[in-house]
């Protein structure tokens, strides 16, 4: 098991954002977390990466307790967090943004190798390497955000809504890339509003509702669950 979250509780002020959340991610899996706005999906990723401190519970990553570690220490252990809404450095070039993603990587030759790997996954970014990130289209910005996360060669890649603001064709392209990244050996924890697409590429899924896990299981099984269809998939399934 690469990641194990046990009875996690998070409070912001008076709000109980996560209630006894437990989940597991096996090495090599794509696990998705779906749920409505305010369910606590982003809070969960932020707590795993050390941005938010839990009030109780445990987070174990590759056998090590990371519950109270700071974000830089969590990243150094091999967890990359691609935030919601891309959050790139708009006034830096594509290449500079990618170099920022490799700040923990030792040695220029290793950074270069990682850069080549990232460019092979996202050739469009290579074409645009000297362009300012702020001038990229929405789809390219999302590719850059994922690529920046990959620059540290993470063992676990956590993505918060990679399909946000993307045209339908690009949504398909991004999900295909996630599958490709996973096939090459990176474990993925994916938060998505596009539950339909997320359940298609994920191995397992957790449904989060008002801070607690409502249901979990193999993605295909959840996709055909009538309750999930109604609440999270709209009428598109079938």
């Amino acid at each position, binding site marked *: 098991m690469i990641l194990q979250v046990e009875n996690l509780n998070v409070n912001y002020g008076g709000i109980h954002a996560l209630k006894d959340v437990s989940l597991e991610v096996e090495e090599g899996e794509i696990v998705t977390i779906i749920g409505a706005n305010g369910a606590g999906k*982003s809070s969960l990723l932020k707590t795993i990466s050390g941005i938010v401190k839990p009030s109780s519970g445990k987070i174990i990553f590759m056998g090590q307790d990371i519950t109270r570690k700071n974000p830089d220490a969590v990243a150094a252990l091999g967890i990359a967090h691609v935030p919601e809404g891309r959050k790139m450095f708009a006034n830096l070039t594509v290449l500079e943004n990618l170099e920022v993603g490799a700040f923990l990587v030792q040695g220029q030759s290793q950074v270069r190798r990682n850069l080549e790997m990232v460019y092979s996954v996202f050739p469009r970014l290579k074409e645009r390497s000297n362009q300012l990130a702020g001038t990229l289209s929405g*789809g*390219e910005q999302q590719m850059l955000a994922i690529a920046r996360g990959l620059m540290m060669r993470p063992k676990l890649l956590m993505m918060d809504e990679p399909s946000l603001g993307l045209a339908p064709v*690009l949504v*398909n392209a991004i999900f295909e890339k996630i599958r490709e990244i996973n096939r090459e050996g990176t474990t993925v924890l994916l938060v998505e509003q596009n539950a*339909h697409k997320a359940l298609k590429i994920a191995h397992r899924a957790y449904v989060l509702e008002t801070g607690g896990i409502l249901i979990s299981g193999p993605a295909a099984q959840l996709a055909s669950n009538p309750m999930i269809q109604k609440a999270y998939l*709209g009428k598109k399934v079938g």
Partner: protein
Amino acid sequence: MPPLLRVSHLTKKFGGLTAVEDFNLEIKPGELVGLIGPNGAGKTTVFNMLTGINKPTAGEIIFEGKKLNDLPPYEIAHLGIARTFQNIRLFTNLTVYENVKTACHQIADYGILDSVFRTAQFRKQETAINAAALQILKLVKLYDRKDEIARNLPYGHQRRLEIARALALRPKLLLLDEPAAGMNPQESAELSEFIDWLRKDFKLTILLIEHHMDVVMNICNRVIVLNFGKTIATGSPAEVQANPAVIEAYLGDEEASA
């Protein structure tokens, strides 16, 4: 009925890049028109020109018979065009309630002396602003969270707050830039109903940029499709969804058949 908005031959060039080319649009009062297209097609640039943020390189924007081309954004807002932003623009450290109140200034016409001396005029209008802000928060279902700091709201609720702020301007024409981004199917279905209700009950005219095709299909009267700054299709939602050029540029095979 004369159109509320008439846009003809609108073009915007940024240096060597033509972001929007020969864009034409007429919207009648009460219509809900969708503007779709791939990322980078020029949709937001159209909004930026309609609201005075970017000056058109060529073409004309006429709103209620008045030419808008050279007006600054605040005057255009005052004439009755309000918008939301794709990249949410809130006062992140103010509360939800305060964010809406700042947008209610159309109601207030007291001067600085009124506010310093807290005159009757000032107190009366402040009361009206408070009431208006609370009413709008009820409409967008954020009343329960009115005292929360805006940055602590989940993404989907921040989008609703954006709409609340635009409504506070009491616009005639509302421009919505990806209002359903970050919402799940259930939430975007609720948002569709809300937008449709706004159009009918508030007699609002709406121009909508949206990638969620279920929203576009359910509520738009007409749809315009942009690609690389050019209009590649216009028609009813069903017509554009069946248009091969639109499928190729925007939808992909799967979405078109879904």
